[in-house]
């Protein structure tokens, strides 16, 4: 894998992030002082065992959850300064999402799902860009089909396309290939890789799959709510070795 174009700045960052549930004896520190930045135009994977805080980090980065302490920036914007309406607006315009399952609205067809954020905002969107994204999805005449008529891989491709359609600062993936067989998973990962390489998207993806992580430019390892390690230009073998090093 070749690294993507080096960016001018950071698409997103967290500084001194704490996320604490409960207190006293039962206190759980899901994030325990995380500071990390994500450069524009790069594909980053976040890995770590269950309970390491990787999903919490992703949710807080995306403005779906709030930190107990510390700050999150998307581009230049400090998320803690935004109210619910502004956060929603930010999610619609600056952030893209790909979840593990249930990414699409069952009543809308593939095309409508792709342009959903723009539709919600009552905007036309950048038609040329959208056409480019749709061409990349390669659904052809299946664009007017409902999600139930698409395969799992096609559904995830539509989800990635939706995430790209508004040209967000950053796209977050929460185990986007977790629910797919390996062949379809590879197809999605290649698609995401291409989005970074050819369309200069920024992607941050949580995964536990070393093969999936190997498509990224950089891997951040979390453990017990802290950043424990980092790896650049990974391969599946190196990741696997690295994980073994954790003594799992």
């Amino acid at each position, binding site marked *: 894998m070749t690294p993507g174009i080096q960016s001018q700045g950071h698409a997103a960052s967290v500084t001194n992030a704490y996320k604490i549930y409960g207190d006293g004896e039962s206190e759980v520190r899901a994030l325990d002082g995380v500071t990390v930045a994500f450069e524009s135009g790069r594909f980053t994977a976040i890995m770590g065992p269950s309970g390491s805080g990787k999903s919490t980090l992703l949710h807080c980065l995306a403005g779906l959850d709030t930190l107990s302490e510390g700050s999150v920036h998307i581009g230049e914007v400090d998320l803690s300064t935004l109210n619910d309406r502004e956060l*929603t607006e930010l999610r619609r315009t600056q952030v893209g999402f790909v979840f593990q399952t249930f990414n699409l609205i*069952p009543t809308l067809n593939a095309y409508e799902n792709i342009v959903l954020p723009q539709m919600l905002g009552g905007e036309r969107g950048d038609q040329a860009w959208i056409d480019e994204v749709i061409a990349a999805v390669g659904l052809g005449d299946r664009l007017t089909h409902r999600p139930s008529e698409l395969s799992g891989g096609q559904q995830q491709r539509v989800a990635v396309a939706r995430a790209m359609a508004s040209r967000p600062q950053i796209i977050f993936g929460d185990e986007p290939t977790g629910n797919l067989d390996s062949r379809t998973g590879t197809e999605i990962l290649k698609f995401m890789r291409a989005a970074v390489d050819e369309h200069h998207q920024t992607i941050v993806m949580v995964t536990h799959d070393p093969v999936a992580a190997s498509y990224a430019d950089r891997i951040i390892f979390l453990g017990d709510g802290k950043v424990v390690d980092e790896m650049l230009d990974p391969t599946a073998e190196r990741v696997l070795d690295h994980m073994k090093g954790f003594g799992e």
Partner: protein
Amino acid sequence: MSIRSTALMARKSLRARLGRTIAIGFAIVAGVSFVVGSFVLADSLKATFDNLFAEVNAGVDLEVRAVNEFGTNASRRDPLPDTLVDEIQAVPGVGMAAPFLQRTAQFVTADGELVTTQGAPTFGVSYSTDTELSGLVLRDGRFPEGLSEVGIDKATSDRERIRLGDAVEVITDAGRFPFEIVGIVSLGNADGFGGATLAVFDFATAQVVFDAGNLADVISISVSDGADIATVQAGITEILPPRTEVITGDQVVQEAGAGISSVISAFGTGLLIFAFITSFVSAFIINNVFAITIGQRLRELALMRAVGASARQVSRMIILEAFVMSVIATLIGILGGIGVARLMIAFFNAAGLGFPPTGTTLLLRTILVAVAVGVGITLASVSVPAIRAARIPPVAAMRPELGFDALNTRRLLGGVIATSAGALSFLIGLFVRPGGNTGLILFAGGGGLLLFLGTASVSSTIARPVTAFLGWPVAKLLRTPGILARQNAGRSPRRTSASASALMIGVALVSAAAVFAASLRDTFVRVLDRSVTADYVITDSSFQGLTPDVATTLRALPELSAVSPIRGAPALIDGERTALGAADPAALGELLDLDLQRGGYEDLGFNAVLVHQDPAANLNLDLGSVVVATFQNGVSVDLTVVGVYADAAVAGNWLISLETLEAISPLPPRDFFVVAKLAPGVEAAFGDSAVRSAMEPFPQAIVQTNAEFREEQEAQINQLLLVITALLLFAILIAILGISITLALAVFERTREIGLLRAVGMTKRQTRRTVRWEAVIVSVFGAVIGVVLGSLIGVALAIAVPDSVIDAVSFSPSTTVVILIGAICAGLLAALYPSYKASRMNVLEAIATE
């Protein structure tokens, strides 16, 4: 899994889904409360009045009165000579014999205000010095004596603030008399009598103010101590003149009770019909909610099957859940019904009807019907979902999509069959009436139910295209939230149609009533327009009729060229009960156009009759034929047919002259209404002021021009429609609740989807909007089907009634517009809770939901 474990599961499930349980429970409670309330209200009032009559007549052992040939006991009777009192007093064993008069008398307050009753009677009665016999209880002051003293009932005194010592006037048929209030009385322990007013005089004064000469209406008798009532009764019978009877006090009580109880029963039955409609609508909601929740519990039920529960145990568990819920809800509903009845009595009393202190009568029959309705409709509603649940294969625990096949059934065929059979039965009931009224109720009522069920079923097949059509403007206007709302509405057609159907029933009934009322109104107006050629119609406010002095006064006006009162009397002709109208033949031709086919108005002399063409054809009558009419007092008269007419709207089927009617009975005549026509050349404004000033001494007379009269008739039909709508409101509210529950369940089901939408940038407002407009589309869908179905039913009803009542079908576009606007409001109302729920959802939790 034993019965006990089934019960345990059922109990746990009820508790776990408390919100749903409460919602279904509410639908049951509402239906049962309405049913129980109708019964309790009618039974309590009946018992109260029975007690009241018993109390009022407690001192009466025997009563002498004229014999009525036919008709109800409430009908008027010929008066008796008051000399009969002394003769009866002389009969051995008679303790006290007292004559009574009861006519109409209206108070005018000291400020000159006429005391009106909104339709209730204004009684003027005499009392006896032996107060045991008159049943009146003195509450304040003393009983009136002589020509200047009057007593008043406590309810009217309180309502109108008429106090002891007030100088009032009393208007009777004989004129207007000044009086002083000296006593306030009650009937037994009842302050008043259903909004009626009561003026009390001593007997001699009553004879004067009622212009009753030396007559009495009835004579009440108490026997002396130790005398045997039957012996005294036999003794009195011997001295009575012909066509006079003596009955026991018990019979008086019983007849009075029967009279009022037929009114209360009719009222109670009316309420009950609406109560059952409400229950029927509740059944829809219950069925729908169970069907939906079983879909949502698919995995749970499949898991139970997988771990060894039999299909029967699964359905038994669901039925047990429903049973427990319905029993509790029915008990609450019975209590609620008693509350509803008390509330209505309080409401009537607040409106000034002055019911006597009313106890609460809860009969075993009421409880049985409540259980049948509450438990019955719930079990019936849940049976289909329970059977379906049993069909869920165990493997659905792992692969839920396999389970849904078990939940889908073919509905179209059954729906079409039910709809057609229902419609057919409805039409047979209306037009063929096998077995008379019973057939009408059985076929039309049963057909109606089947028709609604079938339509509800069929509507699920058109739900998708119709909601897509209705949602089009919403999608255009509101963009994405609108598009989503539109698609969500069409997403589960069965569910959409089921929740819309509840509203459909209410709307259909309102629409049917609207078409019927509009047709009735238009026919009525057309008929009045054509047949009433008079310029003025004079009526009275309490439906008791007018004194003949009104017509006499008007006749004297030079501005009027023709004046005639319209009277009537019940009679038997050819063994059938009918009503004879009476008018002044000299003026008739100018005032009414009966569409005379043969003969002439001027031929309507003494013992002559004009007859409508229908009875004329039935009885084979033509000019010169003779028919025998027997009146209530037993007098029979040979009437010669002198004309045949085609318009029965104003005159009824038979019309005789005033002279003929007056010769039949010594009862003082009362006029239903008076019609009058301006003399040629008299300007309307001029005539108006002449008529109105001539009527000043008669404040009870309401003067209306022809147009005003017509408008009032129209207004009354509109009011009837309003009352029907108000009674259907309960069913409609439950339907709205149903839409709300369905939507809340749908929101719950779509938690992840809503979370996803919020995650990709939908605002809370847009989320609320999506849910809100889905509710609007669903309710408008229900309303549209309801309007279509209801209008068809209305057309059938309008065609089924005789042409003399409705001769052409009219629609009421304004009502339809109001219904559709109402449906939008209903949708908005129904969406309040679900949309709030949807927008308050935590995005992260929503996405993480399984």
